[in-house]
């Protein structure tokens, strides 16, 4: 049986054309004591890459919201109770001001690069 060199080469070329699957980074930001926190420390600014996901987790015994009216990323994750999470994908480079519509003292600047 003749080895199909040409066919294999074309398959390999086609495979090389497919971009490698990149697992987007995911970070968890807690909502605790009406502040945004990461690993138990208050966080006011955060840098992520385009395509990264932030998971917002409510650890307070009352509802929280997460929204942004920034041009870079406009979103409203609604309100959710203690123990629940909502995630958002940052798919465009720029600065995103993230807030809670219930508790305006909660502010987080996400810089997407």
């Amino acid at each position, binding site marked *: 049986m003749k080895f199909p060199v040409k066919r294999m080469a074309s398959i390999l070329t086609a495979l090389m054309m497919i971009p490698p699957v990149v697992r987007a980074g995911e970070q968890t930001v807690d909502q605790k004591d009406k502040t945004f926190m990461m690993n138990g420390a208050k966080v006011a600014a955060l840098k992520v890459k385009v395509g990264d996901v932030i998971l917002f987790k409510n650890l307070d015994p*009352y509802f929280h919201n997460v929204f942004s*009216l920034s041009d870079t990323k406009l979103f409203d994750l609604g309100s959710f*109770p203690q123990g629940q999470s909502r995630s958002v994908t940052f798919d465009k480079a720029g600065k995103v001001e993230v807030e809670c*519509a*219930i*508790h305006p*003292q909660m502010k987080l600047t996400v810089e997407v690069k």
Partner: protein
Amino acid sequence: MIEKLRKARAWTKKGCGLFAALAMLLVLPPLFCAVCLAQGKADKSAFQFPKAFPVPANNHVTSARVELGKMLFFDPRLSGSNWISCATCHNPAMGWSDGLPTAIGNGMTTLKRATPTIVNTAFNELQMWDGRFHSLEEQAVGPMQAPGEMNSTMGDILSKLKSMPGYVQAFEQAYPGEGVSQDTVAKAVASFERTIISQGAPFDAWVHGKQNAINSSAQRGFDLFTGKANCVACHSGPNFTDEGFHNIGLNGDDVGRFAKLPIKISKGAFKTPTLRDIALTAPYMHNGEYRTLEEVIDHYDRGGDNKENLDPSIQPLGLTRQEKRDLLQFLKTLSGKQVAVTLPRLPQ
């Protein structure tokens, strides 16, 4: 061999006992806390009133500034009609509010929202029912220039003030070299408002350990407030507010915070007011819908009336008549010591 096994078993037993004791130590306190919370035995230290109020770096409080602010606050000439002062609506004799369901402004126009008390506004993150002002300085000059309220212009206000040597001198003492300007008017009024603090409430004495400072009904009311009734979900901390915005199911079509922040949950949401001096500031709610605190408690017990965009924290409570009485008794313990307010002599 048998002896070794016996020793090993004995140690295992000891180990188990030790492990069990450690486990009890680890498990019991959280369990105890959980039971406490379920029964509404909240941590009273979370309600300890701060010794000082926050002050912005560019407007430290001095007696000259407070005195000037007080003059401005009580001076009706800051209005277009020369007839309405800040104190017309924020009347110290009526809990620094007006006793009306909703305010009456320029030309006897009835406004759509209630006059909030200025008690403890020093602690507010945002001012006004819809939080549209970020500081007392910003807020202070808002109503003066609002057509429905004091209906003046800053130009008119400043020219009136500058025409009175007594005021020019008071501004110079309060803000040397800064002159009579919108900025100094705002800072002086804010300085005065900042000093209106409700202090010495029976509740505070109880928090500090004086057991009989509030009666047993009020103590049960506190347990309900922080437990079954879950008022503390919004009315939290020593100033009894989360500084947040909630739609609590009141009647009317006022969109509240939504006009400032077009996010769905803001629709019909209003700022959580302080409960300090609450027994002195009837009627209640942003629309003055309720005449008494009993009616307010009934509202929350029903889980609100208007269900459109209702905050999910608002749920029927199933309170008994006694529990409602206990909550009322508790709310009455939040009235601070009443301080006599002397009116300032105004420059001519």
